[in-house]
């Protein structure tokens, strides 16, 4: 899995209330959610985002509530991948479970400026900053997680493992 896009950069502890404010949680329609994505931290995001853009952030990205609306709104907005120093654990789980690629890579985060163009190879765990002409390597996911991602997310994996109907 490879992605190429321009970056949006944020700091530490970007939380789920900032990614998708609770006042919009009376719906789970991805399109509606995407319209308000990052609204309380960066009002320009939802309007300016282009397909395959990449979010880069520092520590603990996605902390706060368990709302899957957060990674859903990001994915639906067109973001191809999130790179951060670290992710909050439920956000980490949710992203993997819905098939939103994420990567922990401190070195890449440090050098990125907003607008840089990155090329990310998820299976290899590598990041190429085309603007700055720099290359970074991070550790790949554990085997089981790769299995989930390659199945296309948790539900696809569950569906595969479900026993067939009797007589099928």
């Amino acid at each position, binding site marked *: 899995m490879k992605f190429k896009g321009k970056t949006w950069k944020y700091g530490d502890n970007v939380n789920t209330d900032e990614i998708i404010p609770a006042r919009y949680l009376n719906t789970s329609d991805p399109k509606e959610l995407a319209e308000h994505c990052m609204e309380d931290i960066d009002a320009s995001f939802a309007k300016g985002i282009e397909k395959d853009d990449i979010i880069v952030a520092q520590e603990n990205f996605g902390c*706060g509530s368990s709302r899957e609306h957060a990674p859903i709104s990001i994915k639906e907005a067109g973001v191809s991948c999130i790179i951060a120093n670290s992710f909050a654990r*439920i956000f980490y789980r949710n992203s993997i479970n819905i098939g939103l690629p994420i990567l922990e890579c401190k070195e890449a985060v440090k050098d990125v400026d907003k607008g840089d163009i990155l090329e990310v190879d998820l299976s290899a765990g590598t990041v190429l900053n085309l603007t700055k002409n720099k290359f970074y390597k991070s550790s790949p996911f554990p085997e089981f997680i790769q299995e989930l991602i390659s199945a296309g997310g948790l*539900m696809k994996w569950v569906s595969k493992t*479900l026993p067939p109907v009797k007589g099928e």
Partner: protein
Amino acid sequence: MGMTITEKILAAHAVKKQGAISQVLPGELIEADLDFILGNDITAPIAISEFKAIEKEKGRELEVFDKERVALVPDHFTPNKDVKSAEQCKMLRDFSRKKNIKYYFEIGKMGVEHALLPEQGLVLPGDCIIGADSHTCTYGALGAFSTGVGSTDLAAAMIRGKAWFKIPESIKFVYKGKLNKWVCGKDLILYTIGDIGVDGALYKSMEFCGDVISGLAISDRLTMCNMAIEAGGKNGIIEPDEKTLNYVKNIAKRDYKIYKSDPDAQYADIREYDVSKIKPQVAFPHLPSNTKPAADADNIQIDQVVIGSCTNGRLQDLEIAAGILKGHKIHPYVRLIILPATQKIYAAAMKKGLFDIFLESGGIISTPTCGPCLGGHMGVLAEGERCVSTTNRNFVGRMGHVKSEVYLASPAVAAASAIKGRITDPEEIKIK
């Protein structure tokens, strides 16, 4: 090698082709059997849609893995706030009826999920639990492994009764010394988060122990474990003791099992606190780690006080607040909103005469709901407004306008602040 309580529970629930496993190590990935799972009116609709998508794909109806081990609690935007929330709650209701899910809680029976499930004896010592809500870590107070997940995890668990986990490292938090007056579980956990930061326990288990914890009521323990996630923790946990057993003995709906950490269990860190140094705390905007003593707050004028939520909406919390408010009037510029966390707590508080005290002081009492805690309804803040709240999160925009502010505190600090109209240490109030 010794194991922590969290490792023991996860090992006992690990699904391995060769049978149960006796040892797990931090970092290992396991699949575990689940004793109980839950979702609410925000998270369950997505899970139900995913469940239905699989049914459609397979061309047949599926059952949930166990009708008595799933709870669906519409509590965030209930009583239905608007048409959209009504639709979401209806999804839970229809799905529960169709799949014969035993624990669907309609208004009139419901409560805020993390106050409700312990009270109903549905979450028990030794359990392995996931909930599609970040504060599912609350149930660790009863000696269960319990953690928040997302809707997709819930959907998969409804079908399979299992979830994947990475075994977390544990941090041990030891509390010693004598508690100061008015200092309760909320102050201890706020102080701890202030000490280690909002990612201080990222991916880790927070194990709370020491004489002070043994002395705490279950209500305070639930408050502490509730906020483990605010330090990034995977779960909060307290070894069951006599108090735990007394609490669950008459309400447990299933069998349960006691696990304790071995003396030679491994910890990533051990932190000790002398609680005699801890004063009533307040977490300033916009992070739960931004704590300082209430007494050090510099004349911070407030507009609203909220007492309730899964953190501090239990009977004991309401009694403490009433004890301070009794015979006082709240400040004329303050709105005081009291939210008993469950129907049962509501009835008990009313019987004990607490409602009279709240009403006479100038407060209002709401039916159980999450309401203002997440800026949903029943007390949303306007631009520039400040609220002292007994809830657990004070992120930007959490209770309403992005330029409003939430100050997290105990019921005692919240009640005292309501009287003075500014953040106040309860010591300042004359008890009548």
